[in-house]
Structure formats: structure tokens, C-alpha cells
């Protein structure tokens, strides 16, 4: 087990789109353990995505169970997650290990239906809502090279302009 280094914005690698996991090797299982240890080493953190530690595969971990006021599914390992439907909107405040010392308001779907593989490679379908749905959407965004500061709303959205520039850089990199 190891705590991995977190990529921090404006590191351009955070804008990279991650590839699907196609093989459940022993290496993947070890990596998931390390990824779990990494996000649990940050107090208050509720999730992480593989690209945040520089591994560009579609793996997301979420665990909000230490906030029992919110409905939750416990520790979620989501591999190749796909949101199949969304419902409603909600505004909430987000922060990110990859964007230290900044938080902002972001609009997300209130509830989502999701297909993903679990840590053993078994298919699962989940209906997730509220705070947990926010966390899952935030992490899945990382797999597509998006950060919460790409989605800021409201008056304090001063980073929007800069993000548009970084999107152009992403296109240049193919």
C-alpha cells in the first residue's frame, strides 16, 4: 500500500481523457488499494479519480459514509462508470485535492443512474442521489479531463476564462 502523489492544477495532464479499463489484472487491484489509501489520507475527502494520481484509466472511488446525514452506498469502486440517466439540478459547494485552497459553487444533477464495474469486475447498476451523486459526478468529470472549476456558477466564477484557455491547450494535445 502507498499514498500516491496528487496532480495539481494547472498541470495539463488533468485535462487528459482517460481510457477504459479492459483487463482486471492483479496490478489494477493493487492500484485501487493505493488509490483508496491516498484519498483516505486527506481528512474530509470523499472521493478520488485515477487521473488525479497520473494514471489515465477510468477508475473512480467514492465513500461518503463518514457523513451519515447523507444517504449513501458505502465505499464505491466504480470502473468504466457510465451515467445512463440524470434527474433534477442542485447547487452545492465543491473543492478538490487537485485544486487546493479554492472552493466554489457547482450545479450538478440531483440524482443519477449509473452503470459501472466494481472492484471484482462485476457489473453493477446504481441509483445515486444528493451529496453522493455530486461526489460521483465530480469524480467522473476527472475521467473526461474536467475539473469543478470548469463548471463554476454564480458571481465568484473568476476562473472560467482561464479554463477556456486550458481547453484549447487540450485540443492542441489531441
Amino acid at each position: 500500500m502507498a499514498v500516491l502523489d496528487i496532480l495539481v492544477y494547472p498541470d495539463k495532464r488533468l485535462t487528459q481523457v482517460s481510457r477504459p479499463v479492459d483487463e482486471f489484472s492483479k496490478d489494477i487491484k493493487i492500484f485501487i488499494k493505493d488509490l483508496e489509501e491516498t484519498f483516505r489520507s486527506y481528512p474530509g475527502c470523499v472521493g478520488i479519480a485515477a487521473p488525479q494520481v497520473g494514471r489515465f484509466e477510468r477508475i473512480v472511488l467514492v465513500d461518503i459514509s463518514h457523513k451519515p446525514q447523507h444517504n449513501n452506498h458505502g465505499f464505491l469502486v466504480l470502473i468504466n462508470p457510465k451515467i445512463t440517466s440524470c434527474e433534477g439540478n442542485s447547487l452545492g459547494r465543491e473543492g478538490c485535492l487537485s485544486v487546493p485552497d479554492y472552493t466554489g459553487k457547482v450545479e450538478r444533477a440531483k440524482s443519477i443512474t449509473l452503470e459501472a464495474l466494481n472492484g471484482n469486475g462485476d457489473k453493477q447498476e446504481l441509483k445515486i442521489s444528493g451529496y453522493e451523486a455530486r461526489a460521483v459526478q465530480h469524480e467522473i468529470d476527472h475521467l473526461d479531463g474536467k475539473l469543478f472549476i470548469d463548471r463554476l456558477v454564480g458571481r465568484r466564477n473568476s476562473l472560467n476564462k482561464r479554463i477556456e484557455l486550458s481547453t484549447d491547450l487540450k485540443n492542441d494535445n489531441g
Partner: protein
Amino acid sequence: MKNWLMLTLVGKDRPGIVSEVSRVLFDMKGNLGEASMTRLGGNFTIMLMVCIPENIITVKEKLRPVCDKLGLSFHLDEIEAGLHQHIEPDVRISIHGADEPGIVALATDALSEAGLNILNLESDVGGYPESPVYVMHIEGVASDGFDTLDKALQVLAREKGVVARMTPIDTMVG
């Protein structure tokens, strides 16, 4: 220790204020920090941290011509400051009602008594001139807990006939 100045500036709103003022600071190798710039009642206002190698007298001399040209009055203070010191708010409070003298003093007095540390306050007057409506949004830290704050807001709402509500902010960090 870095040499931080706080620039406070106000004047009749017109296009170009931000760019001309920040150009003067940039030409003196000033590095801008956190800032709040907004239009209030037809005036444009700036509160701006700038880290600058020049001393305060030189900065004043360089700012004066451009501020005179744009009809702006300004003030500079040497401050002890630093970046990366954000405090995360844990509560949002909204108060609105018919505009009455003293509502801010009464509300913030009650909130301060109830342990609120204000981090950000935005207020506006809307409605028709003959029936103005006051709207205030506050974000802060509830140091004596949410219940104490909620009770204070209920008393305020009852006694002043305003709508006052609070929403805990549970920042999702992923």
C-alpha cells in the same frame, strides 16, 4: 516578508477602470492577489491586494495621474497579508424583506451574538423606488453551531417581519 498593499478605490463607473489601474500596478511589477471589484449604486469599487517592490509613496505617485484622469479616489494601506489562507464557510444565510433603516445592524448584531463569523456579505436593494426590497446573502462560520444561529434568525424574522433562513454548507471535496 512580502510587501503587500491594500488598494481601496472608488469612482463613477465607466469602462476601463480595472484595466487602466491594473496596468499601472503591473508596470511597477505589482503582483495582484485576492480582490473584490463591483459596481455599487453607479460607482465602481475596488478592494485589491497587491504585492509590489516599490514603496507606498511611489505607488501613490504612480497611481495618482490615472486616477485623476478617471475621476477615482483611492487609498493605500500597508498590510500584513498572505495568500492561501482561505477559511471555508459552513453556513449560508439569506435575509430579505422591505428595506428598512437598521436591518443590517440588527441582523448582523444578532448573528454575531449567535457566534457567526462573516466571511462574505453581499447585499442589494431591488424592487420599485417607492417600495424597495432589501436582499442580503452572507457566508460564514457558525462557531456556536447551527441551532443557535437558526434561533437568532427566527427571532429576527419574527421581530422585523423579514424572511431569514440559513442553509448549512457541506463542501464536497473529491
